[in-house]
């Protein structure tokens, strides 16, 4: 037997006279609970640092004069602890009585812990008179503040400052005047609160609670599911009554540990928005399709008429079938969605490949990380992350580049901030200073478009200073000489004027990255959405390879996935050149395997990508499309181009929740179901396959997406009979070997399993590439990158650089979030972020209407000051249909990933003095 280290041994102690054990690190309170003894506690909550302030949990320890707070006391061998001795009980009760006397009798929550404990310890009406009570604060759309129920336990403060690291909640004043405040005692609604609701989840008394008394309604049921928004993949619980969601609480999922962000927690009522499609719609005959979108999503009856499902499906499939039969399968294409489940993605691509007879199937990953994936496949043979976000806890140096994680991966960002607080070196590199930079040891505000210069200069330093990992390079990589030659001309001193970062800083960061015991790189679309996006990613990969910073816990590469199922949709084969699990369609052997699995012959040619499909339509080569849950009329670059293409289609089938901008071009619209209305699996950015469970029935005649795809398939001549989601999943598992060990029943019991996972008892591999890379020879490749510029540089006519992106509250094109009441209340109007000095130079002020024009279009929205920008840079979120940023963007593509340059184009900015503000 191997020796167990001292610290890992359980401790035995006497609990109320009974010999029990405490696991390493366990407090008296935790150990007692595990042994069935519940000690009263108020300021303690699982997951938060014990603060030991309420003293409801005191116990008597033999031989000690003071009582011990059991929530922060680790038992020692042989310690004798009495939890209910007269003295301990007396003190516990006195605390409860004093606190009870402070709070009002009004009930704000069903589960007040104070009341529960007071009842358990039989506390009568307290003998003390109540304190003077603060006024309620209803200024926040999602959170009601009733500090008359506050017991000063500071759980909310710890949740806000230590867990989510938002630093909004404070504890002001002293003694009995001490109180919870937001910022400098601002109303919550006007404070810097980001609405994550962690404080509400933490509050034991309901002093902070969901607005509109949602916490007072007893739910019919609770359903464990997954957040429908971003790739972090937070697990959550829906509280449901009468087929509506009352509230959402975070669950202890592996990537969120109970945390949620404002979208996950409060962005759920889009599903009952009046715009929700509940009946199939068919375009009225003779209504032309115009690139000017004028349809009112509340009442589309001018353009569409309601139809029965039979009619709509026949019409939808019939139109596609006609084109296929007359013009061939290559005249058709499908867009699946990274918002749909793995099963939907799988079935959709199978439909296109086997029913249409083409590989023209793609989805929005093309627009986010296609370049990263190309670089990763070429360099290390896999597009997935090497390590999970949770690895920040084990890393020593963490680089976050081109990612506004606090807004786009909010819960992942909280773990990065936790790591920074724990003393890890956090390096944030971004042309725009984001919230995360506040927590960084190094913040490198490089000039937009100069990623390669900065990263090559880091590599130059690492090579020049002998910090490369020679053994790793020799044994596990090829092509290092190419890099060495390439970066020779990129000294930090030469790159300083190019990227705008001091040479010494570049050197310091390079040294820190190379020499740390473990370094992680996270990147987002600031890296990928350039015409040199693939080059940018190549540099990041090369950095990791030359320093051997990959393939160990806390050490690796992590492109942060945007949508909740980008990873899964790609794995499932929503990619024009690949079958499920990245098997190339032009590989004979692979194709034969899939032909055998699916029982049809398959197109051997790679299909077209998102932007190429639009080009093909305009070129008269493509005539019909089936779009499920995507919104290219908002998300594609240079929307005019995309919208012209959509308008030109002979037959367009759109399957969605709402009448999106894309649906406005449809010939037929099929009303689909939202995530809480269906069961399915979603694969998060960490390669965790997670189970979402149906909590609600879809409204009206809206149907499950899997049913709709099957109905379409049958009408295209495919004889599909999937009884349920599980049947689709199990077929997909045959096509994706890495899911081998993750059966449906395993997911039902475990909710979340990481792949690759080969057998039922394999816990899954959070860290991959430990021994080799999944390339043909197991060896990784260096690919050098030269410095190229953005496609469209600013000039005298268009002097500003436009960066597009997202906002915390709004998701992607806003179809869901702008219909979620809380989210839309927080961010109701389109904004343009401008540097304060630029705004002054334009003679404008915050809140003025600005008009932004590029060579492709023009939009108008409100000016918002953002000192995180550099001069002559503006930032526009692309979620506002009334000021669609993508009318301005440039459709120039990265030659490898075919990803458009969303992060850089030239625009002109002027204050709009004609429009009514």
């Amino acid at each position, binding site marked *: 037997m191997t020796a167990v280290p001292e610290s890992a041994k359980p401790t035995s102690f006497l609990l109320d006279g009974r010999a029990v054990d405490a696991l390493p690190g366990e407090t008296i309170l935790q150990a007692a609970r595990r042994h069935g003894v519940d000690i009263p506690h108020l300021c303690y909550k699982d997951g938060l640092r014990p603060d030991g302030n309420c003293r409801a949990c005191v116990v008597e320890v033999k031989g000690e004069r003071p009582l011990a707070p059991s929530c922060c006391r680790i038992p020692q061998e042989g310690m004798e602890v009495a939890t209910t001795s007269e003295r301990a009980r007396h003190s516990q009760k006195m605390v409860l009585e004093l606190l009870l006397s402070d709070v009002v009798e009004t009930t704000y929550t069903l589960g007040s812990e104070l009341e529960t404990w007071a009842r358990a310890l039989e506390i009568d009406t307290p003998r003390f008179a109540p304190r003077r009570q603060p006024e309620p604060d209803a200024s926040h759309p999602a959170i009601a503040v009733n500090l008359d129920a506050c017991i000063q336990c500071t759980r909310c403060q710890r949740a806000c400052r230590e867990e989510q690291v938002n630093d909004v909640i404070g504890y002001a004043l002293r*003694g009995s005047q*001490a109180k919870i405040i937001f910022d400098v005692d601002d109303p919550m609604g006007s404070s810097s609160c980001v609405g994550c609701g962690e404080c509400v989840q933490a509050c034991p008394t309901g002093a902070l609670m969901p607005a509109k008394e949602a916490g007072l309604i007893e739910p019919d049921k609770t359903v464990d599911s997954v957040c429908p928004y971003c790739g972090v993949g937070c697990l959550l619980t829906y509280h449901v009554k009468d087929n509506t969601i009352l509230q959402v609480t975070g669950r202890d999922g592996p990537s969120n540990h109970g945390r949620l962000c404002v979208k996950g927690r409060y962005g759920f009522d889009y599903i009952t928005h009046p715009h929700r499609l509940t009946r199939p719609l068919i375009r009225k005959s003779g209504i032309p399709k115009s690139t000017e979108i004028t349809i009112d999503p509340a009442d589309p009856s001018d353009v569409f008429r309601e139809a029965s499902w039979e009619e709509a499906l026949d019409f939808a499939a019939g139109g596609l079938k006609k084109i296929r039969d007359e013009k061939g399968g290559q005249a058709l294409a499908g867009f699946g969605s990274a918002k749909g489940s793995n099963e939907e993605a799988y079935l959709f691509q199978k439909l296109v490949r086997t029913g249409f007879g083409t590989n023209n199937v793609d989805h929005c990953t093309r627009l986010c990380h296609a370049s990263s994936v190309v670089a990763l496949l070429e360099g290390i043979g896999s597009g997935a992350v090497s390590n999970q976000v949770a690895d920040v806890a084990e890393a020593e140096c963490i680089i976050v580049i081109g990612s506004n994680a606090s807004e786009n991966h909010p819960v992942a960002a909280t773990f990065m901030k936790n790591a920074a607080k724990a003393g890890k070196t956090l390096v944030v590199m971004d042309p725009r200073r984001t919230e995360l930079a506040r927590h960084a040891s190094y913040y490198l505000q490089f000039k937009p478009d100069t990623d390669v210069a900065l990263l090559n200069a880091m590599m130059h330093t690492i090579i020049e200073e002998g910090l490369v990992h020679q053994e790793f390079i020799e044994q596990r990589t090829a092509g290092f000489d190419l890099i060495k030659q390439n970066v020779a001309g990129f000294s930090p001193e030469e790159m300083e004027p190019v990227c705008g970062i001091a040479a010494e800083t570049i050197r310091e960061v390079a040294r820190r990255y190379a020499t740390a015991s473990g370094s992680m790189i996270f990147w987002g679309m600031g890296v990928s959405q350039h015409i040199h996006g693939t080059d940018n990613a190549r540099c990041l990969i090369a950095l990791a390879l030359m320093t051997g910073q990959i393939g160990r816990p806390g050490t690796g590469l992590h492109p942060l996935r945007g949508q909740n199922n980008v990873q899964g949709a790609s794995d499932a084969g929503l990619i024009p050149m690949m079958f499920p699990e990245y098997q190339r369609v032009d590989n004979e052997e692979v194709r034969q395997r899939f032909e055998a699995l699916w029982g049809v012959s398959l197109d051997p040619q790679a299909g077209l990508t998102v932007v190429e499909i639009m080009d093909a339509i305009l070129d008269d080569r493509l005539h019909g499309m089936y779009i499920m849950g995507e919104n290219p009329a908002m998300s594609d670059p240079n929307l005019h181009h995309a919208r012209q293409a959509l308008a030109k289609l002979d037959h367009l089938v759109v399957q969605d929740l709402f009448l999106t901008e894309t649906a406005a071009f449809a010939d037929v619209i099929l009303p689909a179901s939202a995530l809480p209305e269906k069961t399915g699996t979603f694969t998060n950015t960490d390669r965790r396959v997670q189970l979402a469970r149906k909590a609600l029935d879809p409204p009206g005649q809206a149907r499950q997406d899997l049913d709709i795809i099957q109905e379409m398939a049958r009408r295209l001549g495919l004889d599909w009979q999937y009884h349920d989601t599980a049947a689709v999943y199990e077929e997909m598992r045959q096509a994706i070997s890495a899911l081998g060990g993750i059966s449906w029943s395993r997911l039902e019991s475990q909710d979340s399993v990481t792949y690759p996972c080969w057998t039922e008892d394999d816990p899954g591999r959070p860290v991959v590439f430990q021994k080799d890379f999944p390339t043909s020879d197991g060896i990784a490749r260096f690919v050098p990158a030269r410095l190229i510029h953005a496609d469209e540089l600013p000039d005298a006519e268009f002097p500003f650089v436009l960066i597009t992106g997202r906002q915390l509250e709004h998701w992607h094109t806003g179809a869901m979030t702008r219909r979620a009441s809380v989210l839309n209340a927080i961010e109701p109007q389109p904004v343009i972020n401008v540097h304060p000095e630029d705004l002054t130079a334009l003679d404008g002020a915050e809140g003025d209407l600005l008009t932004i024009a590029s060579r492709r279009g023009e939009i108008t929205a409100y000016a918002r000051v953002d000192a995180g920008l550099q001069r002559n840079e503006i930032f526009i979120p692309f979620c506002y249909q009334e000021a669609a940023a993508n009318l301005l963007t440039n459709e120039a593509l990265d030659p490898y990933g075919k990803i458009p340059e969303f992060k850089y184009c030239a625009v002109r900015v002027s204050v709009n003095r004609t429009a009514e503000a």
Partner: protein
Amino acid sequence: MAENVLLRHEDVPDIHKLDVYLAHDGYAAARQALTTLKPEEVTAQVKESNLRGRGGAGFPAGVKWGFLPKDSDKPVYLCCNADESEPGTFKDRAIIEKNTHILLEGILITCYAINAHTAYIYIRGEFAYGAKCLEQALAEAYGQGLFGKDIFGSGFDLEVYVHRGAGAYICGEETGLIESLEGKRAYPRIKPPFPAVYGLFGCPTIVNNVETLACVPSIIKNGPDWFRSIGPESGPGPKIYGVSGHVEKPGMFELPMGMPLREVIYDYAGGIKDGKQLKAVMPAGSSFPVLTPDEIDVHMDFDSMRAIGAFLGTAGIIVMDEDTCMVRALEIVDRFYHHESCGQCSPCREGTGWLHKLLVRLEEGNGKAEDIDLIDRICTNMMGNTVCVLADAAAMPTQSYLTKFRDEFVAHVTEGGCPLKKAAVQPEAA
């Protein structure tokens, strides 16, 4: 009486000036320590001297220094606790303003002993003049190479910073002080870990009181035996007694440890004012039990005080004469703790509030008979039940007032207010 050590300015005018201090053997002890002794030897001498902390708790200084981890690669810090905010206590202020260099020399020697290269003097925010005195003295001393790099050619470096406090009593509690020094609110930390292991910025830290540190040079200069010969062996040394309240000659007296309280009041402070009778004494600041006239033969040292259920505390002696209303006096004491509770622990935050409220009620004549027991029960539940001992500091005197002057509290209930009401002078602040 021998020459003053701590109040040496009473013997040597202008001793706060560096040239005067140097002319009177100033920094000789520091030079001796840094150039002839090893750090462990300095610690050993201080341990041998039985110097006990003068901040209130009386913990042996040398033993505390010995708690520093031997194998840590983190820097060690010294924090001089100059937050002196205890009611009735004004000894540190005298040292800071009038005998400044003895404190700085004590800091220098202590830092050498504990291998600290950075020291902070955390001085009470209101002591603007004291802070100026320290800054001036430090500037002078730096000018002479007594601080900074390579002091006395010994290779030892030390930087000293004066940090003005954040205006709350709780900033004087050692972990509150550390939090405050780190730029946060002064919320005391849960102990263990103690500062010696996890202190300022998470590093090993020693916190010592001004008077404690000011004793150190004399130990090095005259030897531990000399120090132990002053007062009782178990807690010896020179001591400043500060007397306030109803005495003829309030003020500070440097005397050996272990002086009988009666002598301090009657022989040094001139006895009770206007020939009145003594009613009560708070001998240790306001945080410890009150004494009755028949208890004042006690010797003022740590162990003798403990033997009668009292404490030496800061030896800030607050004297109350026969006209004092004990309910009102206690109300003032508890008003202070209510105001100064930092508010994190519920027994303290709520408890001090309730003590104060109930006492106001009694004093105003609206009290009920059961209030007295309620006060007592709240105290019992505050003691030993909180993050720091501020709660005990409120509860201990309160319970002693109730026990020792119970009749007076009962009378406030039965007579609907203060029976002494018409009997003139009330203390304005305890």
